């Protein structure tokens, strides 16, 4: 039986900040329809890895998504959704204005996220009046616009209440069933472990360097 071609592939992916290695020779494959947990201690390089794959940070080595080398073309980026750890929208902007901008840039409808009703704050609400969790929901909705085939989510549940957390996981599982490859960076394995197919552990490795170990563990036998 042949192994399916991985949708996301990294080979020797490395990143240094001023000669300090953050990611070192990372190798990792994820098939389509897999939810991978990117975990590790604080400063292990989880956010940096997602930023590399989102085309925001340069790196050495290589990464491919669906056969195209990353950072990909504009057409490829249309299929990638990215959620930063903590994004600050202008306080005076309304939720509707924020969504309008990103819907336009992604050429996607506001209701194309697959998120449950009530997840995204009211369109007329000003960002400045939103709680941290509500802002996180708005940013999550932007990442999910147009149902991207590769989702890069940096601590997506950090500020969410239990309903929103459950709702988000439900949505991510639905995306995974549709074939999306999802990388979730989180320092807490316990939260994600029930939903993850794969774990990429960016733990410190005293033998090969500070963040050399890309530990691939199949938790549930793939998608």
């Amino acid at each position: 039986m042949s192994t399916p071609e991985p949708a996301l592939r990294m080979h020797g992916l490395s990143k240094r900040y001023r000669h300090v290695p953050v990611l070192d020779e990372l190798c990792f494959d994820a098939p389509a329809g897999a939810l991978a947990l990117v975990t590790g201690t604080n400063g292990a390089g989880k956010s940096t890895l997602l930023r590399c794959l989102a085309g925001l940070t340069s790196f050495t080595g290589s990464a491919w998504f669906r056969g195209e080398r990353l950072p990909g073309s504009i057409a490829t980026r249309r299929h990638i959704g990215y959620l930063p750890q903590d994004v600050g929208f202008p306080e005076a902007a309304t939720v509707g204005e924020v969504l309008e901008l990103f819907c336009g840039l992604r050429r996607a409808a506001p209701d194309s996220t697959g998120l449950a009703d009530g997840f995204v704050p009211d369109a007329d609400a000003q960002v400045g009046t939103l709680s941290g969790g509500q802002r996180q929901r708005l940013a999550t909705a932007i990442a999910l616009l147009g149902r991207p085939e590769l989702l890069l989510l940096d601590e997506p549940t950090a500020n969410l209440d239990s309903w929103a957390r459950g709702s988000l996981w439900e949505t991510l599982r639905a995306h995974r069933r549709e074939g999306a490859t999802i990388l979730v960076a989180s320092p807490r394995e316990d939260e994600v472990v029930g939903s993850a197919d794969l774990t990429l552990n960016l733990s410190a490795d005293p033998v090969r360097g500070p963040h050399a170990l890309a530990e691939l563990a199949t938790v549930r036998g793939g998608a």
Partner: protein
Amino acid sequence: MDAHVLRITRWEVQRLVRLRWLPAMVGLFAVGCLVNAFLGLRSLRALGLTGIGASLDGLVAIGVLLPPLLALVLGAGALSGARERDLLSLLAAQPIRRSTIVLGTFLAVSAVVSATVGLGFGAALVVLSGVAGATDLWGLTVVVLATLGTSVAAAAVGVLLGAVTSNRLQAVAAAVLAWFALALGLDLLFAGLAPGLHLGPRSLLVAVLVNPVETGRVLTLLATRSDPATLGPFGAYLDTRFGLPIATAMLGSALAAWIVLPVTGACLALRHRDV
């Protein structure tokens, strides 16, 4: 134009016009223009003269100082502020070119500063319209155009500063320093160096062309004065050496370069930098 550029422009304009300190700056400029117009007219009347020449001089002075400062600060704060809040990374992760973000931001800052210039000079025009003749119309038009050109060039420099600095504080500090250098520092430097280094007229011409604020000021003087004695040393040299049409074209081209080059630099900086 790319629809995404216009989306970013609209988004940035919405953000800029909601800045709490912006109305104060716009108001200050409008009041400055009004005061200049009133005082200019009063001084001419006291001398028994007519026309708007003195008011025009005041508008040139305030026009090449305040709007460029506003443009530099707004331009520098836009990209650097978005970077600081990680909004820039969210934008750059979208299926658009990074130059789209730079161009949209530049157009937004230019639009807001142009509206400020329009409001200020519009207020002055209301005062001057009663006494301005048809011959004054050309002078007013040149002052407005040169101020707009200088301000848009300053917006371009501001956006470049925002693209190359790491955070908003650095960017705004660099913008204020740049304004001091362009509005005062370079003039003082060249005035101090010229006698000691025996800088000739050509070197002084270079000194004008490397400073968009000075370029705008000399362009205005050149286009609004018929008497070479009132042009100042730079203007007089340009007028006698090249003639008015070529000198105007040179200064206009210099201003255009001050718009295109910084915006191009900002596009390249953002393209090659981690965001």
